[in-house]
Every structure is written in C-alpha cells, then in structure tokens.
C-alpha cells in the first residue's frame, strides 16, 4: 500500500486494518514520519520528531497485535482502537527524555525527566508518539506566530496561519502527518485551530483530563483534548486520555463512558441521534465582526441539523460581551503566577552571569520570554498587585459567576447543546493581527466563555468560505462529551455527501515541492 493511501486513513480505519493484518504499525508509522520529514520545511508543524522511538513503539504495537491474534477468542477485538496508531503531541506534553519547549526559548535544551499522565495513558493503549508540535509560546496566542521557533503554516493556504495556540497539531492532522493530535485549550486553543484547518478539535470539561506533566498556562482554565479528522477518532483519543489521576487534584472521578468507543459507524444510525435534540442558537455569538461566509456556513449547518429532526431554539447568553475582558484578567493573572517558576536555576538556560540572583532573573526572563508572554505576565502581575486585586481579579471572578450562570440556566431548561461559530473569521494572513494584541484576542471571542464556565466544546468542519475551512462549535453541559461527539457524528453523517467533504487542503501539493518557502521567520 502506498504512503499516500496509508496516511489518508482515519484512525478507526487504521485500527481495523491493523487487526486484519492488512498493514503493520511499523509501515503506518514510517509512512507518517516520512511525510512529515519531507513536507515540514513548508509547514513547520513539528518542533521535534523522534523517528527511532516512534518505530520502536510501532514494533511493540505490532507484537501486541500479533499476540492477540495468536490468543484468539476475542483478544483482537478487545484491543484499544489506538493500538499502533500514530499521534502528534503539542510540545508542552512531557515525554520522558524528550524535548518540551512549550514554544519558548526559556525551555530550550530542557529534557522532561518524566512522562505526563496522558503520555502514560497513550503508552498503555499502545498509541505511537511521532513527535512534538509547534505552538504559541506557553499556549498564549491564536495563530502560532508567537512561537519562539517561528509559525506553522495552514495546509489550506501556506500564506495563512493555522490558528493557535495548538496550531502545529491542527496543521499536522490536516496535512495527514498524523491521524490524531493532542492540544490544550485555555481560551480556544484546540477549537479555533481545528476550525481554521478543517479538523475536529475538542476541549473537554474542566477536570476531564489530568494535566500532570503538561506545562501550565492558566490553571483554572487549561484542559487537554484531541484533534482528529472525524468525531469517532476524537472520541477514541479522548477515551484514552480521560479520567481521574491523583497527581492532578483537579482531575475528576466522574466516570469516562465506554460509549466513546462505540459511536455509530453507520450514517443512518448516526443521523438518527439528532432527532428531537434541543439545540440552542445563542444570539450573542452572531454579532459584528463575523465574516458573512462564516455566518452563512454556520446557518446552513443549523438548517441541516433542523432538517434532520433537531429542534433549534434561539437562546441568549446575556453576559457574553463581558467574556473577553474577564478572560484577559483571569488568564494572565494565573499565568503570571505559573510562569514565576522560570528563573533559569533549576531548568532552562540561565542568561545572566551567575553573580547576582536578581540580575540573573531579570536577564533570564527578559530575554527568555517572547513579547506576548511578557505582555501577559505584565498584565497578570498588575491585576494581582497591591491595590488592584479587588478591581481586577476579584471583579473578573464575580463576572465569571454570571457567565457560568448564563449557561447553567440553558441546561436547566433542557437544552442539549448550543450551536455557534467557533471563530468569527476563517484563517487570516501571517502578520495580520500581530501589531494589535486586542485584534488577536478577539479571535477567541466565541470560544473563551466556554473555558470561563468549565464546559466541554467541540469544533467540527462545516464547509468552506472562499476556499478556507469554517468551524461549527457545539457546546454542552459539564461531562457531556459523549453527547457532543454523538451530535458531531450525526452532523458528519447528514453532510457526508456534501461536495466540500471530499476536498483536501488546497496547498498540500505545494508542500511536496522542495522549492516551497518556509513560513516567515522559520
């Protein structure tokens, strides 16, 4: 089977072929590594690829599959669907002995001395870790342009950003460098890049996935979640990583439903789930600044869901307009505390001369952090400083209560999920929002209230506007991931015959051309 065929399979198709013995994890892994190595000069999705370790993991997976086949009696069917399937990790997930830069110079040269909880879980189920993907520094940004190592390009148009902060994982999955990716989402950093690259990306309920071993940004908001090319694959990856871990005391004991592994494979069955579901259309999410093409695709998606039997209702989330200001107090405040640990003493380069501790801190942090991280650390330090705490941080936490109450009222009314745009715009050009931080922050206006309320949200592809992907966002009550994924699967089923479903990212062919330029600054 050719490398092009191997990399285009969805993860569940890979799982079926691995069990059937049609393909091996080694050849599957090698095909993805080879594609990533050949094309990454133009995409820059990866910060490190570990071919040797990945192939070892693939061989181990092949042995496990062979052993199950030898055992018989349903042992093959009992294997986790991720066994032998390649995964891309955002470069803030610790893999023992590997690099973990979080997109920052201040972690250059750092080697993780232990595995993150999700790395252990992925090893347990037998997934193959290909490498680590690019991101905005410390996950602060919406374009990957704030990576200290230069931005990632969007496979749909190499002159545009893939979104961020998990833009490397999103671009890798969109360009078939990996069928699955891991991201983190503090204000939209999984869902927004998923929307901009035409992939599926889910931010689970706060507490659903352990953050042990993952570089912290804003601890009351951060969640880990999956990227995939369809809802079933996203569900399988979520199933592998979710669940209680006592090393992260915010991870929840709420059971992870095995149902996640059994989303319907038949389109008829999947579409049937939509009948009678009550979907809320929050009017505040359809406002000024949204591109007409984005609004048109989202309205068409809503019409399709309604035609399939869903009940669509206009609803209101009256405190939506306060989300941006609230988020940009809470997240920087928490970040300023979390990033205090980067002092150049225990890890990372020390950029002072080692004679005076204060001078070393100022030099290490002043030169080790990039512009956006410094901006947010400054904002957060100010918001928490003496005399301003009540006016900023406490005020924002109170408004957070109101934002959460808006959502709670809708769940109490019996709304099953909210339907909204993920991003108000399609992918923008490199540089378009770099001079104005507030313009960049507005990229996440439709996603960050979901983090403020701790809710699960998912972005699924809903067609194109001017040749660029548009994302449809579904938002649910706490712990309703399985229901959101079922709805997403239903939406895939009712749009399976749409022309846009058959389209591949327009600039894939350019990635094969060695003359294609790298993204600016790489």
């Amino acid at each position, binding site marked *: 089977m050719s490398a092009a065929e191997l990399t285009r399979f969805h993860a569940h198709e890979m799982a079926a072929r691995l069990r059937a013995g049609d393909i091996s994890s080694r050849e599957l892994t090698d095909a993805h590594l080879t594609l990533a190595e050949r094309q990454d000069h133009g995409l820059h999705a990866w910060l490190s690829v570990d071919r040797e370790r990945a192939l070892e993991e693939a061989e181990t997976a092949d042995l496990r599959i062979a052993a199950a086949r030898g055992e018989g009696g349903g042992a093959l069917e009992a294997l986790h669907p991720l066994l032998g399937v390649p995964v891309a990790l955002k470069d803030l997930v610790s893999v023992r002995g590997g690099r973990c830069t979080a997109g920052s110079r201040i972690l250059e040269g750092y080697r993780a001395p232990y595995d993150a909880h999700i790395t252990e879980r992925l090893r347990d189920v037998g997934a193959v870790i290909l490498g680590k993907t690019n991101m905005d520094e410390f996950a602060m940004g919406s374009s990957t342009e704030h990576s200290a190592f230069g931005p990632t390009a969007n496979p749909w148009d190499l002159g545009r950003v893939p979104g961020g902060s998990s833009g490397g994982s999103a671009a890798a999955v969109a360009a078939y460098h990996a069928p699955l990716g891991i991201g983190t989402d503090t204000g939209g950093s999984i869902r927004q890049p998923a929307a901009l690259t035409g992939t599926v990306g889910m931010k689970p309920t706060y507490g659903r996935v352990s953050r042990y071993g993952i570089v912290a940004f804003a601890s009351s908001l951060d969640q880990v979640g999956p990227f995939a090319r369809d809802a079933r694959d996203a569900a399988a990856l979520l199933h592998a990583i979710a669940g209680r871990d006592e090393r992260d005391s915010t991870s929840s004991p709420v059971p992870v439903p095995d149902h996640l592994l059994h989303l319907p494979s038949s389109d008829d069955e999947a579409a049937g789930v939509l009948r009678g579901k009550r979907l809320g259309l929050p009017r505040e999410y359809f406002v000024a600044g949204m591109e007409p093409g984005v609004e048109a695709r989202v309205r068409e998606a809503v019409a399709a869901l309604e035609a399939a039997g869903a009940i669509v209702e206009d609803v209101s989330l009256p405190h939506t307009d306060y989300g941006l200001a609230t988020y940009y107090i809470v997240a920087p405040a928490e970040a300023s505390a979390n990033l205090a640990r980067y002092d150049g003493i225990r890890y990372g380069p020390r950029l002072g001369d080692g004679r005076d501790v204060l001078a070393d801190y100022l030099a290490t942090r002043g030169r080790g952090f990039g512009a956006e991280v410094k901006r947010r650390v400054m904002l957060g330090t100010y918001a928490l400083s003496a005399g301003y705490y009540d006016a900023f941080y*406490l005020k924002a936490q109170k408004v957070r209560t109101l934002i959460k109450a808006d959502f709670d009222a809708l769940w109490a009314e019996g709304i099953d999920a909210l339907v909204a745009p993920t991003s108000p715009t399609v992918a923008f050009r490199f540089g378009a929002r770099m001079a104005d931080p507030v313009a960049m922050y507005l990229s996440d206006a439709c996603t960050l209230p979901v983090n*403020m309320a701790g809710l699960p949200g998912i972005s699924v592809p809903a067609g194109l506007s001017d040749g660029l992907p548009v994302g449809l966002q579904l938002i649910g009550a706490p712990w309703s991931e399985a229901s959101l994924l079922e709805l997403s699967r239903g939406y895939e089923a009712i749009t399976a015959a749409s022309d846009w479903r058959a389209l591949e990212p327009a600039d894939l062919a350019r990635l094969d051309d060695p003359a294609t330029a790298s993204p600016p600054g790489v």
Partner: protein
Amino acid sequence: MATLSRADVEHVAHLARLGLSDDEIALLEGQLNHILDQYAILTKLETDHIAPTAQTIELENILREDVARPSLPVEDVLANAADHDGDFVVVPAILGERD
C-alpha cells in the same frame, strides 16, 4: 478604570522580574493601556452581591494516601540545571557578606 504610567510599567516589570529594554517599556505602556481600556466594560456590571468563581467543577477536599513514593532520579533532574555541584543546584549568593 486605571491608566498605567511609564513608572507603573517599570514597577510592574520589576515585580514580575522581567528585564525590559526602554523600547519594550514604551511599547508595553501603549499596549497595556489599550488592553486595560477593554476592562472598562466590567464596571458596567453590578457585582457587589455576586460570589466569585475560582473553579468551575465542584470538587472539595481532595486527599490522597500519605504514602512515600520514589522521587525522580537526581541525575535526570540535575541534568536540566544551569549549574550543579554533586547533588546540589548551584545558585548565585542571595545574602551579602556581613560587614
């Protein structure tokens, strides 16, 4: 709400232990004030009787068994330090000499 002066920016940079150039301070003064302007919307909301939300899921009193477990290997941890001596991380002196 509030406006940051250049002296305020320098003070906050010191609190945050960020060594900034004059150009960075000048740029941040403008950018931070523009961002603070966005916060003004919050003053329109009456919140005196609203309880703050610090976390969104209702977990309380998370405890674990008090059992000793192996720590990370010392050599792996020290390998990341800028400077070390035996099993110790070397840091600049933080106490001056007594006169």
